[in-house]
């Protein structure tokens, strides 16, 4: 893929503006639902940046995994826990904001200084591999990265089982304390939360 440099610059500027403004919206907007949809936009634009870097396979994986799975999962979680609640004002929110903002700005200035002053040993010519990158990734995954590839599959299995165990409701046929059979319709109503009055 080789498109004109001016086109690349325009695409890069638009995509990075969408990424940054979307990310700011994700952390700053009041409504969590808007944040979740903006997060999807950020993921799509990051996939566009990958396309600019000649990585079509990773861009497709980004769209499939992040937009198709992670973002949908987040939206489902918001749907399940979306309760309007008035947060208790915390006492030292001003100083906390100030400290965290200054930490972030310091880190940002350090990172940008490193980005701009370090001399990167760039290879020449750049972006030469082009559409062969998918073949190269497959070769890596089945030769020198075979062990991490298999471990990643075990990790995904463990995460799946762990998520099911953590998120399911305990359905019991007998009440533990009395031994009587449980009315199964009551299970759908949320039982009395155990820890709420222990603030």
């Amino acid at each position, binding site marked *: 893929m080789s498109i004109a440099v001016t086109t690349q610059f325009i695409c890069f500027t638009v995509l990075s503006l969408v990424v940054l403004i979307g990310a700011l919206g994700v952390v700053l907007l009041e409504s969590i639902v808007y944040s979740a949809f903006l997060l999807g936009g950020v993921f799509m634009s990051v996939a566009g940046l990958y396309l600019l870097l000649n990585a079509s396979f990773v861009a497709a994986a980004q769209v499939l*995994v992040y937009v198709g799975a992670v973002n949908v999962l*987040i939206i489902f979680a918001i749907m399940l826990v979306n309760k309007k*609640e008035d947060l208790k004002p915390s006492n030292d929110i001003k100083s906390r904001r100030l400290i965290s903002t200054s930490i972030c700005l310091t880190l940002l200035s350090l*990172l940008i200084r490193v980005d701009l002053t370090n001399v990167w040993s760039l290879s020449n010519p750049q972006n030469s591999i082009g559409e062969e990158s998918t073949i190269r990734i497959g070769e890596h995954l089945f030769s020198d*990265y075979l062990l991490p590839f298999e471990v990643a599959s075990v990790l*995904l299995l463990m995460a799946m089982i762990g998520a099911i165990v953590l998120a399911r409701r305990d359905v019991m046929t007998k009440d533990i304390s009395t031994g009587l059979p449980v009315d199964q319709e009551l299970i759908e109503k949320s039982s009395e939360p155990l820890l709420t009055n222990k603030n």
Partner: protein
Amino acid sequence: MMNLESIPIQAFLIVSSLLFCIGIWGLLNSRNAVRVLMSIELMLNAVNINLMAFSSYVDNNLIQGQVFTIFVITVAAAEAAVGLAILLSLYRNRVTVDMESFNLLKW
């Protein structure tokens, strides 16, 4: 600026630095637990942009950065699933998603 032959690598690095810092700010300042998870996803994406930029500009033949990005995406998916499951189970016990009220480990 237009006489360059391609986008400089510094542009990608600066975008990913900004995205990472926005993620950290959101992580430190959010009261809603779902937003904290979203901030973590933003930070992981910033790291991925960095890896992809280096793999395209520095390590051009053996694109190992792209392989690493795929592994990071895998771990991020697992992390999101387990994190949201923990969040659901916390919500079932506390009936809130406020980060300030999650002090079960405090003695």
